[in-house]
C-alpha cells in the first residue's frame, strides 16, 4: 500500500474546555477521495483547518504529506488546495485576476501562473467570464472559481469544506461533475459534507463524525450494509398519529425509527412490509419504499437526522 498522504492519530482540538475535535483517527491514501460526513458543528471544519495547516492541534499526531503542520505550515500549504466553506474570492479583482494573484501568493512564476489560469478557467467553464467582476457571478460560478483557484498551485491534496452547500440542484451537479473529473485525474480529495448524496457520489471512503468523535468508517456502500438494511419503507400517518401507529407495528422489519413527521421501517423488502401494514388495517397518508442511504446510517449511529 502506498504511503498515506494524511495521517491523523487521536487528533484533538480544544477551544477552552470545549473539544471541537475529540480524538479523531483516519488515514487518506494518495488519489483517494475521502469524506468527513456529519451534521453542522460536528468538528468537520475544525479538522479541515488542522489538515490545512491553519489551525494548531491541541494534542494527538498529524502528518500531511509526511510533514508535521506545527513545524512545516508553509511547506504543507504550498502543496494543498483549499476550498473554504464560505467563498473568500477577492471581490476587488476580476475573475482571471483572482487566479493570477492567488498563484503569485505561492511564489510561482508569472508566465506559469498565466498558463495555468487559462487552463483552469476552461476547466471551471468560466472562459467567457474571465474579465467579469466576481460579484457578478452566480453562486455556482463562484464555487467553481474558488475550486479553480485552489488548483492553481497543482496541489497534491484538495480540501473541500462543504463544497455544494447553498447551491441549487443544477449547480451542484455541474460541480460534482468537475470534482469527479479531478478524482479521475488522480487528485486526492478530502471533503466535508452533510449531504448524503454528495458523500455517496464523491467519496471512496468516509468517516461519520458527530460531536468531534468518529462514529463509523468505511466505503459508503459498506457502511450502508453494516448499519442499515437494504431497503427502507417510509410511512406517514400525520404528526399526531405517528407515535400511536409505531406502537401497533412494533416488531415489523429489522428496526423501526419514529421521526416527528414519519416512521421508517428498515427491511430487506420494503414492499412486503407495506403489505403487512395494510393487512393490519392501517392506512398511511403516504408511503415510499427506497434504498437505504448514508442518512439512515447516521440516524442509526446517532439517533438523529443529519439536517435538523
Amino acid at each position, binding site marked *: 500500500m502506498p504511503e498515506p498522504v494524511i495521517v491523523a492519530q487521536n487528533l484533538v482540538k480544544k477551544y477552552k474546555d470545549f473539544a471541537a475535535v475529540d480524538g479523531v483517527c483516519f488515514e487518506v491514501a494518495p488519489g483517494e477521495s475521502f469524506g468527513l460526513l456529519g451534521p453542522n458543528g460536528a468538528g468537520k471544519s475544525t479538522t479541515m483547518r488542522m489538515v490545512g495547516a491553519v489551525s494548531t492541534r491541541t494534542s494527538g499526531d498529524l502528518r500531511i504529506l*509526511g510533514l508535521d503542520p506545527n513545524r*512545516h505550515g508553509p*511547506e504543507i500549504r504550498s502543496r494543498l488546495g483549499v476550498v473554504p466553506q464560505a467563498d*473568500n474570492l477577492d471581490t*476587488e479583482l476580476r475573475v482571471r485576476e483572482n487566479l493570477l494573484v492567488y498563484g503569485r501568493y505561492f511564489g510561482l512564476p508569472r508566465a506559469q501562473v498565466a498558463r495555468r489560469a487559462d487552463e483552469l478557467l476552461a476547466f471551471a467553464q468560466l472562459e467567457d467570464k474571465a474579465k467579469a467582476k466576481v460579484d457578478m457571478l452566480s453562486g455556482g460560478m463562484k464555487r467553481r472559481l474558488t475550486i479553480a483557484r485552489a488548483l492553481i498551485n497543482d496541489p497534491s491534496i484538495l480540501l473541500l469544506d462543504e463544497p455544494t452547500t447553498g447551491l441549487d440542484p443544477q449547480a451542484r451537479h455541474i460541480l460534482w461533475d468537475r470534482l469527479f473529473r479531478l478524482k479521475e485525474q488522480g487528485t486526492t480529495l478530502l471533503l466535508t459534507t452533510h449531504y448524503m448524496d454528495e458523500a455517496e457520489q464523491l467519496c471512496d471512503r468516509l468517516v461519520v463524525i458527530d460531536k468531534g468523535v468518529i462514529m463509523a468508517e468505511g466505503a459508503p456502500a459498506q457502511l450502508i450494509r453494516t448499519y442499515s438494511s437494504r431497503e427502507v419503507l417510509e410511512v406517514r400517518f400525520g404528526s399526531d398519529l405517528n407515535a400511536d401507529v409505531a406502537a401497533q407495528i412494533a416488531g415489523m422489519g429489522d428496526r423501526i425509527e419514529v421521526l416527528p413527521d414519519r416512521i421508517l421501517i428498515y427491511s430487506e423488502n420494503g414492499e412486503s412490509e407495506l403489505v403487512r401494514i395494510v393487512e393490519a388495517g392501517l392506512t398511511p397518508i403516504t408511503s415510499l419504499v427506497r434504498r437505504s442511504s448514508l442518512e439512515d446510517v447516521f440516524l442509526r449511529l446517532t439517533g438523529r437526522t443529519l439536517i435538523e
Partner: protein
Amino acid sequence: MTDTDRRTDAATSRPLGALYAGNARSVMLRGWQATRSTNWLVVVSGFFEPIFYLLSMGLGLGALVGTITTESGQEVPYAAFIAPALLAVAAMNGAIYDSTWNVFFKMQFAKLYEGMLSTSLGPLDVALGEISLALLRGALYATGFLVVMQALGLNLSWWALLALPAVLLIAFGFASVGMAVTSFMKTFQQMDWITFLLLPMFLFSATFYPLSVYPQPIQYVIQALPLWHGVELVRGLTTGQVEPALLWHVLYYLVMILLGLIVTTRRLRTLFLD
C-alpha cells in the same frame, strides 16, 4: 537525503519559517491590481486633500498671519510653517487609511487574509505587503505635495529633499501601528474611535502654530504623540533647521514600526493560524 528531510532542513534554517515566506511582494502586487481595477478614485482624492488645506490655510490665513517664529527661533512665512506639517499629516492619513479601514474591511468582510494565509504566505508577508502598499501611497502623496511646495517657494532649503524619506518613515510608523490596532477591532463603532483620536492629533500637534503656545504640561502630552514628532522632523528639513535632535524623532518612528510589526504579525497569527 529524502524530499522530506530537505524540507525539514529548509524550515529549521529559517527562524521566521512559519511567519514569513519572503513573498510580501505578491501581497503588494495584489493591492496594486485591486487599486487599478476598482478604487483608484479614492487614491486620487487623498492627493488633493492636503493641497486644499495648504491653499486655504497657508495662503488664505497666511496673508493675515504673515510670518511665524519656529521652535529654533527662525522667522518663516506662515505657509512655509504649516506646509511641512501638512506633508506629515498627508503621510499619516494615507498610511492610516490603507492600514485601518482597508485592512478592517479585508479582515472582517472580504476574508481576504484567510485566503492569503491558506497559501504558503505567512502572516509577516501579509503585514509587510499591506504596509508597503500603504507606504507606496504615502510616498506618492508626499512627492506630489513636495513638488507643489517647491512651486510655491515653500521649501527653504535643499534639506527638503530628505523630507521624502522622512515622510516614508512617518507613513511606515503609522501604517504598522494602524494595522496592529485594527487587528483588535471587531465593529465599525470601534473603528470610528481611530478617526476620533486622529482628528485632535492632527489639529493640535503643532501643525498650525508652534508648540510654545501651550502651557508646559500640555506640551508634554503633545510631545508624547507620534504626529508631533513627524511634524517637527519634516519641518526641520524643509525649513533647513537641521540639528542632531531630529534623530530622536527618527528613533521614535523606528520604535513605532518595530512594535507595530511585531503586534500585527502576532495578531494575524492568532486570528488566522490559531
